């Protein structure tokens, strides 16, 4: 096996590496470009070709201008409140329901589970119109609740956690049962502690989805103050004609940097979560 390093093998190795490098550059360069653009003192500098990092007037002033033009920190806070609340609520509703489907015996279980799976095929884009009417009837449009409630039920989440719970060994629960633990106690003290990775998977996928969602806030929210970051960025960029491009670039960069920090800090979890989403189904 050691003498198989022929010219062909070396060429294949080099080619592989070149393809991967080209792909990695294509993926990362746009981010570097926008970070550099956020520091540009003028539009001409932002669009200078070829782009250079060196510049006569690098500035941090664009970041201040972002917060002058739009309530940027408000957008940010709103996004955190919405995605955070939806994620916590979804983890609670999905894990309890998943436990019932995985472990409890009750009438109508099969039908109920079929309904849950069926609802996977009716995404929020289909029901957005009546959802808006329901929200306006109960007076929740134009509030963050309108962005939180529609995300709480997740058929995907119930399915994902159910698959995981079913794979846990029964014996652990039997032991808890013999000790006289209630169903809820068993769930909270035995099942949940054993399900960290699956719960993290669902949490990360849920948070990412709602953090990035553009449709629901566009439909539900009319006050600028109550918008989330994705719409906020579009509002900021809507001033393409009047505002400076550096300010827009700074707004985008400010949205990306916190995500980048969390991404690097939690990379192991995120990578594993997404990698295993395919194996669990």
């Amino acid at each position, binding site marked *: 096996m050691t003498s198989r390093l022929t010219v062909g093998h070396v060429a294949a190795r080099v080619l592989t590496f070149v393809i991967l490098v080209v792909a990695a550059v294509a993926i990362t360069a746009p981010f570097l470009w926008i970070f550099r653009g956020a520091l540009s003192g003028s539009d001409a500098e932002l669009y200078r*070709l070829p782009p250079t990092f060196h510049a006569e007037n690098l500035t941090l002033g664009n970041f201040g201008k972002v917060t002058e033009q739009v309530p940027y920190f408000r957008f940010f806070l709103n996004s955190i409140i919405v995605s955070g609340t939806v994620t916590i609520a979804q983890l609670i509703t999905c894990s*309890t329901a998943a436990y019932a489907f995985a472990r409890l015996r009750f009438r109508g279980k099969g039908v109920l589970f079929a309904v849950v799976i069926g609802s996977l095929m009716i995404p929020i884009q289909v029901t*957005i119109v009546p959802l808006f009417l329901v929200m306006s009837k109960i007076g929740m449009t134009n509030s963050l609740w309108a962005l939180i409630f529609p995300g709480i039920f997740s058929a995907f989440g119930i399915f994902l956690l159910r698959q995981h719970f079913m794979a846990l060994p029964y014996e652990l629960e039997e032991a808890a049962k013999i000790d006289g633990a209630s169903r809820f106690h068993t769930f909270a003290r035995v099942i949940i502690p054993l399900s960290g990775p699956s719960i993290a998977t669902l949490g990360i996928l849920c948070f990412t989805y709602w953090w990035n969602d553009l449709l629901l806030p566009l439909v539900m929210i009319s006050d600028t103050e109550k918008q989330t970051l994705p719409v906020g960025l579009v509002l900021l960029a809507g001033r393409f004609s009047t505002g400076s*491009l550096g300010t827009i670039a700074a707004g985008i960069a400010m949205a990306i940097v916190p995500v980048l920090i969390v991404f690097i800090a939690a990379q192991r979890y995120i990578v594993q979560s997404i990698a295993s989403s395919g194996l669990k189904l």
Partner: protein
Amino acid sequence: MTTKPTATRPRGDGAAALAFLTPSILTFLVFVLAPTVGVLILSFFDWNLLSDGTFAGLDNFQRLFTDERLLGVYGSTTYMALVILAVNVVLGLLLAVLLETGMPRWIRAFFRLSFLFPFVVSASAVALIWRFLLNKDLGLVNYLLGLTGLDRIDWLGSSTWAPISVIMVNSWKTIGFSILVYIAGLQSIPKQLREAAIVDGAGAWTRFWRITFPLLSPTIFFLVVINTINSFQIFAEPRVLTQGGPGDSSRTIVEYLYDRAFGDFDLGYASAIGITFALVLVVLTAIQFWFSRRWTHYQ
């Protein structure tokens, strides 16, 4: 004689089940089932936001068949969705296989992270970045094309290139997800199988098609399903990049539905469009499951 109750009639957990299911059932009823029934009802009404609706019978459904734009929008949605699907499934597999070919660990980790990062960035931020880069006169992409001697392309303003821009930007954002799922699938293939094939003298090409590919088929199937559903639901990229234009060349069905509902306030007709979209998703899923029975190999 009485048998033990546990043997014949398993003790039900009705009360506990109800408690565990209540949060889901309540949110399901109000925010999923009610709106789903609502779509069906609304589609029979002529309804705008200012006045309550009047019954319109099948008018909205008749309009579906006479609305020429709708067919065009379904055409452009399907075109963009299928190409994005193909890029994710094919290019994603290629990159995942290349990543798994004996690269040092830290290099692999670096590539994996850089491929995945756009997936966690919001689509509107991604689309705004590319709006700069794809600018016809000042954008970096056309500058690079110019260096190779090619003509400038009107990425966002021509009906040929606008949908291609949406395809590129969405694929760029989502391919990391597919790559990662593929890597997990590749790593779950037992090493012994490949080693045995090497001993038998099978080349890399044969090994890929005879071992890797069949054993990867559940992963491929998962990615086809997920990417189909996701790519048919695209909204943010065309909205921010091209506003669906020029004409309807890069408009997706969700964008069209959004404009009918919240641009024209034509809620009844928008609901009828929503029903067609749900039907499309149901049919697509059914087709995929039918196919998967025929060629997916489970270990």
